[in-house]
Structure formats: C-alpha cells, structure tokens
C-alpha cells in the first residue's frame, strides 16, 4: 500500500490535475472504498506484486535448470515452485491485472459513474487479496502446494500428498473462485445495464465487449472447477472416494472437470488482452478498428468454442479415436476467429498513420508473438501429432507464447496506455521503448528454444535432467533469457516509480483516443461524469460520424451523489478467509469464528444505508 500512498500524495501535488487528491485519504479510506477506480488500483498493485512473485519463482526454476543435474534447489522445492508459478500467474497475476482494467476502465468506457454493485466489487477485491495471501502463506506452513497448477487426481489424494499443502491449494482456489464469480457477475450487470444513453451493444468499445465475454466465461466455467475442488476436498477431509480408483473412483473425472474450467480459463486470460489490443491499435493507427462487428463476434465465438474443446488437454489418456477426432476438429475451428482478429488488426494498421509509442509497440509485439503461439497451438490441436508434444517443453513454449508473448505483452500495452489516465502522469517513452525491446528479445531467447527442447524429448515439470540428452545448451539459453526478462520488468518498475514522482502530467487525452474514458480528467474525479454522456457512434471523441454529446466537467453543476464507503465488504472477506483457515486446520472454533464474522458482515451489509 506504500506505493498507493505515494501515488495519492503525488497526485495531490500534481499542478495541472484539475482533481487534486483524487486518491487522497488514509489507509482506512482505501480499505473501505467502494470506488471502482480505487479498487482497480488495488487490484493492479496486488496483481503486479504477485506477477513479481511468480516471476521470481520462474527465475528459481530456470536457474535450477541452467545446467544438467542442477542442485540449486531440490526436487521438493522445485515442485512447489512450478506449482505456485502456474497458480500465481494464472489466478493472482493475469486475472487480477485484467480485473484491474475491468474495474478502472470499463465504467469509464461505458459512461457510468461506478459499477452496478460497488460493495460487491470491494468484496471481490478483498476476497481475492486475502485469498492470495492465504495461498502464499503455505510457504510458511510446511510448504506450498506441489502437485501442479492442474492438481491431477489422484496425486492430490491424502495417500500421495499427505499434509496440508494440497489443502492450501484446494481451499485457496475455492476462495479465489468466490472472488472471480462475484466480480464477473458485477461486470456483466454493469455492462448490460449501466451503459450511458446511446451506447448500444455495437457501439461498445472492444475492451468492454471482451470484458463482458470474459465475465460470462467466468460465471459459466468456475462452477466446474468448484465442483472438482469440492470433490477433492471431501476426499481429503471427509474420506469420500471420488478419486479413489480402488473404490471405483475415476481419476479422469477430475481431468474433465478441471479442463471444462481450464480451457475457458485460457480465454478468460486471453480475451481481455485481445480487447485491449483492439483499443490500442486503432488509436495509434489514427483509424477506426477495421471490421468492428467481426472482431466482436469472433471474440464471442472463441468463447463459445472454448467450452467445447477441453479434452484436447487429454489426448494422451486414450479417449479413443472418435473423441480425439471431435476435439481435434473443434480445437482447429478456434483458429478461424482468432485469425479473423489478427487480420482485422493488421487491416486497421493498413492505410493508417502509425505512431510507435510504447503502447503501440507492445500491441504490435503482442500480435507478432501471439501468431507464433497460435500456430504452435494448431500443432497441439492435432491429436495424433500432439501425442509427441503434450507434456513436453513444447507445450511450455506454446503457453508462454500465448500467455506471455500474448497476454503479458498486451497487458503491458494496456498499462502504458491507461496508466496516464489512472495516475494522471505519462510514463517515460525512452524507458518504455528500452523495456519493450529488451523484453521482446529476452522473451524469445527464453521461450523459443523450449520448442526444440520439447521436440527433442524433454518432458515438462522435471526438476532436473541428465547430461547426454542434448538439453544443456538450449536450457542455458533459456535461463539467460529469463534473467534478462526479469531485468526488463525492473525497467518498467523504474519507469512507473519515476512517472509517479516526476512524470509529465498526462492531460485529459494524451493519445488523442476515441473512447469515453479520455473525455474526463486524468485521474478522473471520483464521480467520473458530472453529467452522463450520450453517444451516437463507436468513437465518440473522434466524432467522425455524428456529433456526440460528451459534456466536460462543468463545475457549475452539482456533484453527483456517490455510494458511501463501507467496511462490510472487508469484514465479509475476512470471514470467508477465516472460514477457509478453519477448514484448513479443521479447527471448529476457527470455523465458527469465520462464520460468525461472515454473518455479521452479511447482516451489516444488508441493512447499511447506501448513500451518504
């Protein structure tokens, strides 16, 4: 929270900012806030913190694998690290970083003053944050989860994973699921119901569209993993037999439930990134998005198809030729809408007037790297060919081209693009460009060789390899690249801190962008829009089609009433995590305490007056 404090005090000192002290107030004001912007900032800071944690875990993994028979860390720690690296990056870094943008940007883009349920929004954040701390506390209590982020049964059963490591994972993910579903429900309602007058669905900015699609994916996909986790929890705590083969239990049930969630989850990670890029490319091409409806519908189609392809994670379990054919074909189909998006971005650039500012560089880097990840994805979609590649470093390379070269690059583009709106200050262009080029080179150095490691027979999730298999040189390359990748992140961190302390004031619309968030000051006033805007086109600030009514902030008008701060969300979140801790320790008093706190939180919540 220290950075937030600095951010707040500096924003207060910003001379050109018309809204001094947009983020002022003490710690308590942050804890009780229901303002979507502050919640967004808290999401962003905690997500970035966990991004660094997950990155450090990855660096330890790479250092261990730098040479054969590595002894930097032992097998036990390695298994914890790769499990927590995956879990952290998926649930504690990328998803909350996307959520940060959902929070901060979406209400601004649709011309709303807040989300539909501000307190529910605060609850989502606090459950996420406390759940993330809960999950990572495992490092202090006998070791972190060590059965992989996919936690395949029956390795996770009490027999093969005694102790509370897996319990941390099961309960932690259940808690994080509560947060994700609550947040997603909130965003669905917000986007459906709080759009400003004139903003029909086909005028919504692409980022808002993809937020909506992602939120639907979340509410539909998370129940599957919830059920899987509950089955596992019952097996571990109450002695049920769901994943016990000796009693007729089927270990494949877990894989089905996990991947029915897990594959949509990939699109939960990816679609917000696609949305952000669809915003950034047109702005820096000085041209509206090419084929808007096709970009929208392809995103919707990707989400739909994403529910029908889960078994492509299971080609090696022997589902039989019919299932393999169906899931291969369905997976290949996803390439079509994905290709449509890429072609439309290139067509948007075509004939434009491209400005290579840092957000644009990262967006282009995203497109270039995502193409590679998509193509290796097609290789995986071929069930037969995938029998060689699945569970090897080829997959590791593939997912990192999609999730790092893809999503992380896009999220960096989004950070460079929207941070000026959030903090009111520009980031340094020169440092941004250095960051981009170092990261691009380091990323490829790290992950490109891993394709070949996989093809040459190196399985993933191995804490070491022996000499003589030809893995040495490429692993060393990969490790060097990863260290450079870590260094490139520090450049960004330096740029960010520098910008907070002495960055140029951003002004209302530093990029000459088209969407509503750029019509209000940076940082925005706490009520966002004094009068609600009314739009008649997709790019209201460019006003190419009609004259949209985008009123400025007229001080003569009264400030709108905003919801009061509330501490019940954080109380309820504490109760939920208390209940989780009770379940973990199987201590009834803790369980009862957690439930009591929850009930207090719910009761107070229900009867709290809404406006100040």
């Amino acid at each position: 929270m220290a950075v937030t404090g600095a951010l707040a005090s500096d924003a207060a000192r910003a001379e050109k900012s018309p809204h001094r002290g947009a983020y002022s107030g003490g710690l308590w004001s942050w804890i009780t806030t229901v303002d979507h912007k502050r919640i967004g900032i808290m999401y962003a800071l905690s997500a970035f913190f966990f991004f660094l944690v997950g990155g450090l875990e990855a660096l330890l993994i790479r250092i261990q694998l730098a040479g054969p028979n590595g002894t930097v860390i032992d097998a036990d720690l390695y298994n914890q690290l790769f499990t927590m690296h995956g879990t952290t990056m998926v649930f504690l870094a990328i998803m909350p970083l996307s959520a940060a943008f959902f929070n901060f940007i979406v209400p601004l883009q649709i011309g709303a003053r807040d989300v539909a349920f501000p307190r529910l929004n605060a609850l989502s954040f606090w459950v996420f944050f406390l759940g993330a701390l809960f999950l990572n506390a495992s490092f202090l209590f006998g070791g972190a989860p060590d059965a992989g982020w996919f936690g395949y049964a029956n390795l996770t059963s009490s027999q093969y994973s005694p102790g509370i490591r897996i319990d941390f994972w099961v309960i932690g993910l259940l808690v994080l699921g509560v947060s994700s579903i609550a947040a997603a429900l909130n965003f669905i309602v917000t986007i459906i119901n709080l759009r400003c007058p004139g903003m029909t669905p086909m005028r919504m900015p692409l980022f808002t569209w993809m937020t909506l699609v992602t939120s639907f994916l979340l509410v539909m996909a998370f129940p599957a993993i919830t059920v899987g986790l509950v089955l596992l929890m019952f097996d571990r705590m109450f002695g049920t037999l769901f994943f016990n083969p000796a009693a007729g239990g089927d270990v494949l049930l877990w894989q089905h439930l996990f991947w029915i969630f897990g594959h949509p989850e990939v699109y939960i990670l990816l679609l917000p990134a696609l949305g952000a890029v669809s915003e950034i490319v047109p702005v820096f091409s000085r041209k509206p998005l090419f084929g808007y409806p096709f970009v929208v519908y392809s995103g919707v189609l990707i989400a739909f198809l994403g529910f029908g392809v889960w078994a492509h994670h299971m080609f090696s379990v022997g589902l039989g030729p019919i299932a393999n054919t169906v899931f291969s074909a369905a997976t290949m189909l996803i390439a079509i809408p994905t290709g449509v998006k890429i072609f439309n971005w290139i067509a948007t650039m075509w004939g434009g007037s491209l400005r290579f500012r840092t957000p644009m560089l990262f967006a282009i880097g995203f497109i270039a790297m995502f193409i590679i990840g998509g193509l290796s994805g097609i290789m995986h979609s071929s069930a037969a060919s995938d029998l060689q590649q699945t569970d090897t470093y080829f997959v590791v390379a593939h997912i990192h081209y999609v999730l790092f070269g893809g999503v992380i690059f896009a999220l960096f583009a989004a950070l460079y693009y929207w941070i000026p709106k959030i903090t009111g200050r520009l980031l340094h262009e020169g440092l941004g460009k250095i960051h981009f080029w170092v990261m691009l080179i380091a990323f490829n150095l790290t992950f490109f060789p891993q394709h070949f490691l996989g093809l040459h027979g190196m399985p993933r999730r191995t804490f070491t390899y022996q000499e003589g298999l030809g893995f040495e040189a490429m692993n060393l390359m990969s490790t060097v690249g990863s260290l450079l990748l870590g260094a490139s992140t520090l450049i960004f961190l330096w740029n960010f801190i520098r910008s907070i302390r002495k960055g140029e004031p951003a002004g209302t619309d530093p990029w000459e962008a088209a969407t509503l968030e750029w019509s209000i000051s940076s940082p925005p006033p706490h009520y966002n829009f004094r009068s609600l805007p009314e739009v008649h086109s997709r790019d209201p600030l460019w006003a190419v089609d009609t004259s949209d009514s985008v009123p400025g902030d007229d001080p003569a008008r009264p400030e709108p009433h905003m919801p009061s701060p509330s501490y019940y969300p954080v109380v309820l979140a504490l109760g939920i995590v208390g209940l989780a801790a009770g379940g973990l320790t199987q201590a009834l008093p803790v369980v009862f305490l957690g439930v009591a706190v929850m009930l207090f939180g719910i009761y107070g919540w229900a009867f709290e007056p809404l406006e100040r």
Partner: protein
Amino acid sequence: MRMRHAAARLAAAAALLVSGCGGPFPQSALDPASDFAWKLQDLFQGIFIWAVVVFVVVEAALLVAIFRFRERRGGPATRVVHGNTLLEISWTLAPALVLMMIAVPTIRTIWEVDRPPVREAIVVEVTGHQWWWEVRYPDLGIFTANELHVPVGETVDVRLTSADVIHSFWLPRLGGKRDALPGHETRLWFTVDSAGTYLGQCAEFCGLSHALMKMRLVAEEPQAFEQWVAGQLEDAVVPDTGLAFTGSQTFVQTGCMACHRVAGTPAQGVLGPDLTHIGSRQTIAAGVLENSPSDMARWLADPQAVKPGAKMVIPELTDEQIEALSAYLDGLR
C-alpha cells in the same frame, strides 16, 4: 522409407540449425524409429510446413503495415475505413482451407494409430509405480523392470496401468505417449524399425521424483531377442561361494526379500522391481544410474540421495554389506 528417413534427417538438421546448438539428441521425437513414430512425424512435418507458410505470410503482412504506414509529416490523411465484408469472408475462408489441409491428415492419423494391431503382437504389460516401471510379458512369463526388450520388426502391444498415481509411458523415438492410469488399462503399439537402445521417461507429473522415472527399450534382432527371453526365463543362479554368496545372505537378512523377487530363491516380494536378472539390465534405479557395482553401492548407501522420495526402505548398511550385495546383484544376470 529411405525418402522418409532423408526427410526426417533434413527436418532434424533444420531444427538443429534453428535451435542453434546442442545435440546429439538420443531421446528426440524428431528421430523416429518405429511405424507409430513415423506416422506422427509425417503428420507433424506437414503441419509444421503449413505453420511456417502462415507464419511468413502473416508476419510479413504485419511488417509491411509497420513500415509502409508509419506516420509521416505532411503525409496523406488516413482514410476512414470501417471494414470490408469481402475481405472478412476471404480471411475467414483462407484459414479454414489451411485447417482442412491439416485436419484431413490429422484425422486419418488419429484412426490409424488408434487401430489395434491386426497381426500377432508381443504383449507387454507395463505398470507405473512412483518412480519406476514394472514390466511383464504375460505370454512369455517374463518379469522385469524399467527396460523393455523387443525384437525388431515385430509389433509390440503395450498395455498400461498404474499402481499408484498417473504416469505416462513415453519413448519419443518410438512414438507418442500414453498415460498409465490407475483403474484403467490403456494401450499403444508400435513396430521398431532398427536395432538399438531407445530412451524414454515418464511424461506425466507423478510426484517428487517424476524427473527421475526413466525407461529404455532395447530392440534386438529376433535371434538376440530369443536369447534374451531364454535368459530371463531361467531362475537366478544363486552363488554358493565368495562375496556374492555373502551378498545373497545379506539380501535375506536385511529384508530386501520382503519387497523384491529373485526367482529360484525364497525372495518372492512383489512391491519392488523383480531382481531375478538385474545384472543383465543396462541401468538401475529406473534409468538414473549405470548398472555398475560402484553405482549400485551408491544407490544402496542412500537411495534418497539418488532419487528423492524413493519408496525403497533400506536399513543402514555397512560398507561390507553394500559391497556384498552389489556383488550378488551384479551376478544375477
């Protein structure tokens, strides 16, 4: 076949060139040596070529856009274009066509490699354990571990299951992987092209020492294979003098026999690998150590140091006991 070999060498060489360094790669999927592996390799190559074509076309378009349309002072103003339906249709259809080119061979290969062998095959039952492979030839009555022997040119029908958690059977040069699941029997089959030793390892994360769960397959000319079978069918030759004899007694006294079987002796344990002919295997500890008296001594002195979490329960042994045991096990050929 020769053409295919040449193509594979070429592809492997290209891959090497791209990856820049390393090699030789004795565990490489790009160096197939069975019908199964060849089918996957041919399929992969076809897809790979299409991927390269698409990569070049799309990245080139991106680069052209980047260089041609960079902002210029006094350049022409951007034209406002919202889209073009014809273009949209064509770049929906073009990938669909490419995908057809990939889907057809994919589906053909899926059905080919999933069709059980028609001719008589050598059945091998492989059971995954944390962290070693139990190997049985039910028709031949052979029990061994971590090392399969098969004759060149004959189809091998591998039946997989697991005694504990999920493992995955993978010999990259002989084909794709197949999971060994507790409570299920899965199968894969292949015919090895040429004699040699093929390396592999478990490909599904299975706990602490997943990285150290290796295996190998020795493909031999039929005659050599017959010899191997005959040797494996014999009971162990129990030494009656010398260090090996002392070792055989140590084997009984220190409790090894509770888990290990040595045919022809009172040792009939079933929890650990069958040791009747351990001396004839190339490696020990599931492919992690060479099968030499010194490596055997290292293993017996501290299995946990070699393989973290290893389930082998062994009392602390004196150097003399270790030496004797190594000599005894080395003699079980």
